[in-house]
């Protein structure tokens, strides 16, 4: 799939409207790459003028900061900010809540002021402005969906309604889990937990969350974060329920229903 980089566009003397910030998971993790591609498909359908940074993109530094490694965070953050200063674009859109949160809330203190949107907000905008139209296809139609609030879109930035309004476009019911919205349970990946073994305990956090998702009897668990997807999928596999329940990103659900 052809995607232009900012450097290519700049060489042609052009600057796009949207910079799609792909993130580490979206670039390298096989499961998250599917989300990335689904989102690109949506952007193309909506005829959005966009580009990526490609090899110039670096980790935003989120796990380093949350682990406590502030030096590494600021280093990575400043390198990104310097790179971005070389280019012009209107807004950044990302499919990762962690990248979104660092850009929105933490880069300004280091001199990086950018307009940033998470793709759940951007998808809502594309639907509202009529840039994309959805007719739910066979894979989604009539299926029951439950929605998992990621910590950094939910509590971290108080975005609860945008993703839900996107899901409602799919003409299905959302069955909420016992803990949802501001009370939503973490998938277990945040705070750099993704990159280490758990401390001793009774069970893994993702198992607990997968159990809650399964308790809703939904067919699809909708998520908005590559790390949540990995975690909940693992939990569901552990419960041997992967044939009955699929975990999908909002972008995948919308891409599947595009007109």
């Amino acid at each position: 799939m052809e995607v232009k980089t900012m450097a290519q566009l700049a060489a042609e003397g052009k600057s796009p409207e949207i910079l799609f910030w792909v993130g580490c998971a979206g670039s390298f993790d096989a499961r998250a790459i599917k989300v990335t591609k689904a989102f690109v498909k949506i952007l193309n359908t909506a005829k959005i003028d966009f580009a990526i940074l490609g090899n110039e993109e670096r980790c935003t530094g989120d796990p380093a900061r949350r682990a406590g490694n502030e030096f590494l965070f600021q280093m990575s953050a400043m390198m990104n900010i310097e790179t971005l200063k070389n280019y012009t674009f209107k807004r950044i859109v990302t499919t990762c809540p962690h990248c979104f949160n660092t850009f929105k809330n933490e880069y300004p203190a280091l001199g990086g002021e950018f307009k940033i949107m998470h793709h759940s907000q951007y998808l809502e905008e594309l639907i509202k402005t009529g840039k994309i139209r959805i007719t739910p296809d066979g894979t989604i139609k009539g299926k029951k969906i439950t929605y998992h609030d990621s910590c950094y879109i939910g509590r971290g930035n108080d975005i609860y309604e945008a993703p839900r309004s996107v899901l409602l476009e799919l003409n299905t019911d959302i069955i909420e889990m016992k803990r949802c919205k501001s009370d939503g349970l973490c998938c277990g990946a945040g705070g750099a937990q993704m990159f280490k073994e758990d401390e001793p305990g009774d069970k893994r956090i993702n198992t607990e969350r997968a159990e809650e998702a399964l308790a809703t009897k939904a067919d699809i668990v909708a998520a908005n974060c590559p790390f949540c997807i990995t975690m909940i999928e693992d939990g569901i596999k552990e419960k041997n329920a992967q044939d009955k329940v699929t975990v999908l990103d909002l972008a995948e659900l919308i891409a599947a229903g595009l007109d």
Partner: protein
Amino acid sequence: MLPQIIFALVTFVAFWYAYKQYNRIWKNIHLGKEIKVTGDKSQRWKNVVLIALGQKKMFKKWIPGLFHFFIYSAFIITQIELVEIFVDGFLGTHRPFAAIFGGLYTFAISLIEVLSLLAFVATLIFLSRRNLLKIPRFHKPEMKGWPKLDGNIILYLELALVIGIFMMNGADTVLQSRGVEHYTQTGSFAVTSWLGPALFGGLSDGALMFVERTGWWMHFLVVLGFLNYLPISKHLHVFLAFPNVFYGRLTPKGEIDNMDEVTTEVKIMLGLEEPDPNADMSDLPEFGAKDIFDLTELNLLNAYTCTECGRCTEACPANITGKKLSPRKIMMDVRDRMELVGKNITDNKTDCIAAAKKTDGVVLSKENYDDGKSLFDSITKEELFACTTCNACVEACPVSISPLDIIVQLRRYDLLTNSAGPSDWMPMFNAIENAGAVWQLSTDRDAWTKD
């Protein structure tokens, strides 16, 4: 004259002792780093009205929220009657406000009585909930011993307070109805107009006077007891919830504060800034928080405000899945440490002065304090590194406390000053540093576009 003298003496001693205690708390909070209060003042006041006064977060669990509200409003409204107790106590009068305010007085006291009755029922429910029902958040390891007793003591005091009110008003009502001299007509109160005759109707005038005085003194002494008990109890939140909510952060919960002290250094490392040739490099700086002195005043105010309710721990994903981390325990550990350090400084325990700063006549202060201990003696790394930074604790807290803010600062100390932290993280750190991604891979970042 004698009752007035005793009253004045008791009041003086209680207030003097209370002053000393609250002063101790004020000083201990100032052991932390000063905070700059920024952001929208009107938003801060709004938070005080909604969260502290209106107890918005308490109503997330509406049944205990409602009962708590009864106790809380009874506690506040009762203070009207307390004003009169002071007037009577000092001047030897009896209910002078009744004559001055007339019907309004009857209404105010009736309101107090109705709320007190509700509070009485709520207190009984809370006592049985705490001791009979097996609600997990009240029975975590950190709640053993004093914290458990503390939770019960305050409820018993609350019962005593309400009983005092009903004794004094109830006996008074009967005395008034008998037209006994000195007992001013007050109009009939909502509860004691029937409860008084029912309980005390058969007593002699002398016995009634005794009951009335006992209730009056009991009410007064329990209030003074409260005043002096709060500073050693989790119930300090009665007062501190207000400043705590006012000073609480207004930024989105997802935001972790920037460490400005490393920014210059990082800029120099990246060649974005020239190093200052006059910079003093002799003292190796310490980063993050090791002890209460490194935390902010807000963190310490948070610790004193914590009600030990455990709503944070109950929502914490790490704790739910059986890990040792309990955000409530973090707050309790900070408070305990602060109390200990504060006491050592007040007592001028010179063996706590850092060896390098020990000279003749030096007194112990926050600048030279070193007792060889730190927060890491009570908070283990196992707890710290189990946190997912999910903010569930911050969201759950009814009084706007952030245990997460403290956890992050302690992690920073371990990572940056101790160069420790979980070894699992090393590959991720190396990858970010060398490859610009959380995994060290040989593929290009845009390889996904090529297939």
